[in-house]
């Protein structure tokens, strides 16, 4: 509850520019020449000291990509992207894989500090405190300090991972958490086995592009029967101009394993658009569970719709084993264009897929997001809760597919899509596709569209709340079901973010 107050304060402090992550870090960087060619793919692969098989994998994807066309079915409009006018690789100069975090450029550390990455991790990143030692930052207010300190972070700056915390402790539990570039070298068997097994290189235009040029990202493997002892998270930061970000994340939960993973993303404010095309693959084997949360806050563009990130992301989880479970939770507030459908393939019998989403659009943002739940196994269950909030002149579309295969006896889905409109110039759209090829499937779909009513705001204001406070309260109420799905410490962050995103959207 006090978060509502905090939110409002925070919104006030932000003043002129609402996007507080819009700063640029002044560091020298090394870039590959602009444009895309086989040579660039080879350059990236060489920079990462990759084995030959990985290079061949990339090249195959690149050749495939040349034959593909950009999809146009989403409800988004944007100027044509010139794929030869983008840098596909940028790394902070003087960068050598840091074993000790003292070697990390202080400018980069300051960047992460500004991004509000939990301070204790900062201490660890900066080498002030050894892992596991009590922090001096513990104060009475942070009684949850222990839990907060135990979030392992992988920080990705432009094309490279600059730091991963808690590696040693995770290793003790048998959990592998490292940049994917490192995993390709150190765990080639695991990577070979699973990379591209959920999102094949030929999947779609943007995923194929990613397969050719992906630069870094996170790799997680949780072995059989292991419950990952802490939250894992990755913070992505695009800093360089005209640079695309193509990260690749691969998470595998072996039989009976559990892992909760969170990603956050920000970028500087720039007049031109920047391309982000990530791929995330999740694999859950028998009885395994993966919980994947995203707080997406890429730069959305300015008040006139200039600049902002084009976010074309392919995220898919494969419930490969029986009784496995994959849950996607996303809070989407950033990006000029969002094209994103985190999906679940419910292959294992009795497997379960969940999708909880809050998608907020303001200004000239365009969001086309949703999920796919593909029921293949018997008695598979899926649940979709989507909350879209449109303000300003934005367009917000939910697009979802729920399908039951011929053999998916007893498949069940529940879908709830609610849209909230703030103001008169925005739009909300719901495009659900439902296909049942098995007559025993039970699919339920509920959808509502409402406006934040003047009556509701007046009621709150007549009790003493300002227009901003009233809106924050109403919106927080609207998204509560989804916020509850986020790990505790991120739920508060997300709540603040939501209010910041809606700043200026009411009278």
């Amino acid at each position, binding site marked *: *509850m006090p978060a*509502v*107050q905090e939110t409002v304060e925070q919104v006030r402090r932000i003043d002129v520019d609402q996007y507080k992550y819009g700063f640029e870090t002044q560091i020298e960087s090394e870039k590959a020449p602009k444009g895309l060619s086989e040579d660039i793919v080879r350059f990236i692969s060489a920079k990462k000291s990759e084995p030959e098989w990985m290079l061949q994998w990339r090249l195959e994807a690149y050749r495939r990509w040349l034959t593909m066309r950009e999809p146009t079915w989403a409800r988004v409009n944007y100027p044509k992207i010139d794929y030869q006018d983008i840098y596909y690789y940028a790394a902070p100069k003087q960068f050598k894989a840091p074993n000790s975090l003292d070697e990390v450029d202080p400018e980069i550390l300051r960047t992460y500090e500004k991004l509000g990455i939990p301070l204790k991790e900062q201490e660890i990143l900066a080498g002030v405190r050894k892992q596991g030692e009590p922090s001096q930052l513990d104060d009475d207010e942070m009684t949850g300090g222990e839990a907060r300190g135990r979030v392992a972070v992988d920080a990705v700056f432009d094309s490279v991972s600059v730091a991963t915390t808690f590696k040693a402790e995770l290793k003790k539990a048998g959990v592998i958490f490292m940049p994917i570039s490192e995993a390709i070298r150190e765990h080639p068997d695991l990577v070979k086995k699973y990379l591209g097994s959920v999102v094949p290189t030929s999947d779609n235009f943007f995923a194929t592009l990613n397969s050719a040029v992906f630069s870094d990202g996170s790799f997680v493997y949780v072995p059989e029967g292991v419950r990952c002892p802490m939250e894992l998270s990755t913070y992505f930061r695009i800093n360089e101009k005209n640079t695309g970000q193509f990260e690749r994340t691969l998470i595998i939960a072996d039989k009976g394993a559990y892992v909760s993973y969170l990603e956050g993303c920000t970028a500087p404010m720039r007049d031109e658009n920047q391309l982000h095309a990530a791929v995330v693959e999740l694999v859950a084997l028998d009885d395994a569970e993966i919980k994947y949360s995203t707080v997406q806050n890429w730069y959305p563009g300015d008040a006139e719709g200039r600049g902002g990130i084009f976010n074309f992301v392919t995220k898919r989880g494969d419930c490969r084993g029986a009784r496995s479970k994959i849950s996607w939770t996303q809070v989407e507030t950033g990006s000029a264009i969002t094209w994103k459908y985190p999906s679940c393939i419910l292959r294992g019998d009795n497997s379960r897929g969940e999708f909880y989403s809050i998608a907020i659009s303001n200004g000239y943002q365009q969001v086309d997001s949703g999920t796919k739940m593909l029921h293949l196994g018997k008695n598979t269950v899926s649940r979709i809760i989507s909350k879209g909030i449109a303000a300003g002149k934005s367009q917000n579309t939910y697009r979802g597919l729920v399908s039951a295969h011929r053999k998916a006896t007893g498949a069940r889905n529940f879908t709830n899509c609610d849209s909230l409109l703030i103001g008169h110039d925005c739009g909300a759209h719901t495009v659900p596709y439902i296909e049942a090829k098995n007559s025993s499937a039970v699919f339920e779909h509920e959808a509502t569209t409402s406006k934040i*009513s*003047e*009556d*509701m705001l*007046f*009621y*709150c*204001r*007549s*009790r*003493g*709340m*300002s*227009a901003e*406070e009233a809106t924050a*309260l*109403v919106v*927080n*109420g*609207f*998204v*509560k*079901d989804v916020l509850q799905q986020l790990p505790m410490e991120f739920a508060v962050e997300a709540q603040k973010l939501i209010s910041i995103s809606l700043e200026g959207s009411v009278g």
Partner: protein
Amino acid sequence: MSLLEIKNLHVRIEDKKILNGLTLTVEKGQVAAIMGPNGSGKSTLAYVLAGKEDYEVTEGDVLLDGESVLEMSPDERAAKGVFLAFQYPVEVPGVATMTFLRTALNAQRKARGQGELSTPEFMKLVRDTSGKLGITQEMLRRAVNVGFSGGEKKRNEILQMAVLQPRLAVLDETDSGLDIDALKIVADGVNRLRSPDRGMVVITHYQRLLNYIVPDVVHVLAKGRVVKTGGKELALELEAKGYAEYVGEAA
């Protein structure tokens, strides 16, 4: 100085004139009942006092402690001590009643330059007041007015009033939709809040409520202005004779 002074108030919504030179004074410690037939402007008066935007004041003024409130936003008025108990309380899905109360109270306190209430202080305040109104902890955890019965909604309004401690409370048809037991609980809640510093405007169509909240003065509203003022016995007279006389008179 009077607590509330309404001077020659003219109000319209779109092209329709609703209040036509309404003049009315409420003193500190006074409970003023406003009665009148449907369409006489009772609810409009309530909304205009609280600052609802759809209404256009074309003439006249509303003074609280001698200060005009017409230029103030609804939240500024609330911070000055104006409270409206709604005839149809609004549902706020997903927001726990407790959260709503605390956000409102702290917003008002901040506007008045007071510090926020600590969690234990706030909890105690709510526990004390909610108990007397028969509001359970479970109800406080539920979303504001969502799935509340008519009686629960009205009790919730009185709870808010008790927590916010306004200087001027306007009760708009608080009796509508209540059975006799609920009416008594609500009336008791209102009576507990009577105080020498506080004024109340009790708007009602029926005399029944005034058996329980006994007014100091009764104003009859017809066609957008006060047509008669009297003591509490005026309410009984209206109950017996109906409004026909006043409707005719004003026309």
